[in-house]
């Protein structure tokens, strides 16, 4: 099962979304959390930002249609833990995000869904954004095996925690199989905890 879940590289066209501290309320407004499934979230990605931009938001720009990669700036995905945010982006078609930095829960949620978050220096993130704005058809490759972002003309190493890189290339990014594999070991930790097994003095 894990062999087809391996993620070694994401290659495709790019959509640049500029701005620091873009929180998950902006990625998917709370009104779309009023649902019991993640279905249908994709089209609502960045909805309020898009409305405010009057059609000029990159997610509304036909030149970026079909992009698999998203390039962002600092502290992307801050705020609410809602997995709806990466779920919406995934359903929009995003498979990897390149940016200067990511908020922690968002980064973890992306990992669990197999979305690669690649950290590059500040000026590199904005220079990729500028390059894409000048040439929207440009392809980018996020190669997980050697932690390198590649364009036709450039190679740029990116930062990714080793455990996360490992998880992607071995196809073990969805932890559930590992977590349910050793119930007896888990049970013994459960039983050993004073607040469950008793505070002693028996």
């Amino acid at each position, binding site marked *: 099962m894990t062999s087809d879940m391996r993620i070694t590289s994401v290659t495709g066209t790019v959509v640049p979304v500029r701005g620091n501290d873009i929180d998950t309320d902006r990625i998917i407004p*709370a009104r779309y959390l009023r649902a019991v499934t993640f279905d249908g979230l994709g089209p609502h990605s960045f909805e309020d930002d898009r409305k405010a931009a009057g059609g000029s938001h990159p997610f509304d720009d036909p030149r970026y249609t079909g992009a698999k990669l998203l390039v962002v700036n600092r502290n992307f995905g801050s705020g609410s833990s809602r997995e709806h945010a990466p779920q919406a982006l995934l359903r929009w078609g995003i498979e990897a995000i390149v940016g200067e930095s990511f908020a922690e829960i968002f980064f973890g*949620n992306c990992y669990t869904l197999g979305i690669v978050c690649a950290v590059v220096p500040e000026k590199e993130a904005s220079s990729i954004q500028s390059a894409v704005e000048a040439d929207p058809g440009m392809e980018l490759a996020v190669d997980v095996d050697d932690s390198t972002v590649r364009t036709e003309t450039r190679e740029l190493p990116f930062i990714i925690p080793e455990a996360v890189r490992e998880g992607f290339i071995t196809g073990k990014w969805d932890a559930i199989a590992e977590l349910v594999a050793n119930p007896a070991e888990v049970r013994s930790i459960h039983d050993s905890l004073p607040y469950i097994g008793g505070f002693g003095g028996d």
Partner: protein
Amino acid sequence: MSKTLLEKVWDLHTVRELPSGQTQLFIGLHLVHEVTSPQAFMMLKERDLSVRYPGRTFATVDHIIPTQDRGRPFADSMAEQMFVHIERNAGEFGVEFFDESTGRQGIVHVIGPELGLTQPGMTIACGDSHTSTHGAFGSVAVGIGTSQIRDVLASGCLAIARPKSRRIEVDGSLSAGVYAKDVILHIIGALGVQGGVGYAYEYGGRVFDSFSMEERMTVCNMSIEGGARVGYVNPDQKTYDYIRGREYAPEDGEFDRAVDWWSSMKSDADADYDSVVKIDGSSIGPMVTWGINPGQVVGVGEKLPDPADLDGADRASVEEALAFMKLEAGAAIAETPIEVAFIGSCTNGRISDLREAAKVAATGKVAKGIRALVVPGSQRVREQAEAEGLHETFRASGFEWREAGCSMCLAMNPDKLVGDQICASSSNRNFKGRQGSPTGRTLLMSPAMVAAAALAGVVVDVRSLNQPAAQVPGDLI
């Protein structure tokens, strides 16, 4: 070897190191609410999995629940559907569910401590980023996404890497009119909204020693707004006194043994931290956010930044925030007119918050044209407030008195800003669109400051109200 509380709790709950290098961490208490859990329960059903430790799992409804008319079915059919899902899932999977009929319903981060479920030395998870609140008791509490809720339900465990540790020591003492909310806003302003990414914040120092449990919760709650997924305070006598006698607390002789164990979980005096930050508490005044993230904050006597003084990304962020907030560069935050006042949320919806706000409310009337809401954090908080007559004080002053829930903190229920209304709010997030209108604007501050703004109709320094009632500014309706 000396250890921090974080290390002690982590080690005790570690099942094994996963091949990925993350820890398989046992979760001792799993709290569930209606918004982030339905998909997780569905994933369990798809894989034919059960809830491994239903006795360690508790559910409530808080986000979508109306705070006015709670008759079932709810007028909002989507809210009704979400309610039905959590009710049914809890029933099917054997999870205890605190709905309104139990008298124990409320915001998940208010009821956990209130029922005595939250205790020192635990690992706690909830599909909600403000889970850090529970760290006030000396637990390691993390917010998780929906796939991780599935993981915890199915296995009792999380795959997670241990954060680094930062001790934030606030010494000195706070002046009158300065609250826990101001302390955490000050910390976020100083360290930035991203400063805590990868860290667990351990809060300590004289100010925290003298804080009540509710004040500690307010600070731990907003750790995530500073980027830190975990925030905690070492347990002490106040912690034990708070827990004693609560519904899920250890009883009688067991309680004393629990205290011995809880005390042993504190950080050792000579423990090492990856980082230490020291703050002088006496330098902190009432704080107000002016922008679109909680780090965009100033003292109530200060002025907003001017993008002209800044470069690059910082300049762009300030420009964007000022434009959205329709506030002027370099203007004073005091005297900014407000249209709505919201007192509540998991940050500041507890009894002590309502008491402080009521003291201010008692000095005058809500200014003309201002919509002011008080939403208790739980049914128990509401009951207690009513027993003390706080609801009468609020109503007499012109505030609406509501049922318990998240309400206008994120406006998934009918309580929403309209258009570009500007709201003085005791909640935790001032993100664009957070309070239910895409163009709605939020000014975060302490509950007492919100009450003061409601009376004055503008942002005011609550300390200026420590005067006889007659001198209170405010439009007497």
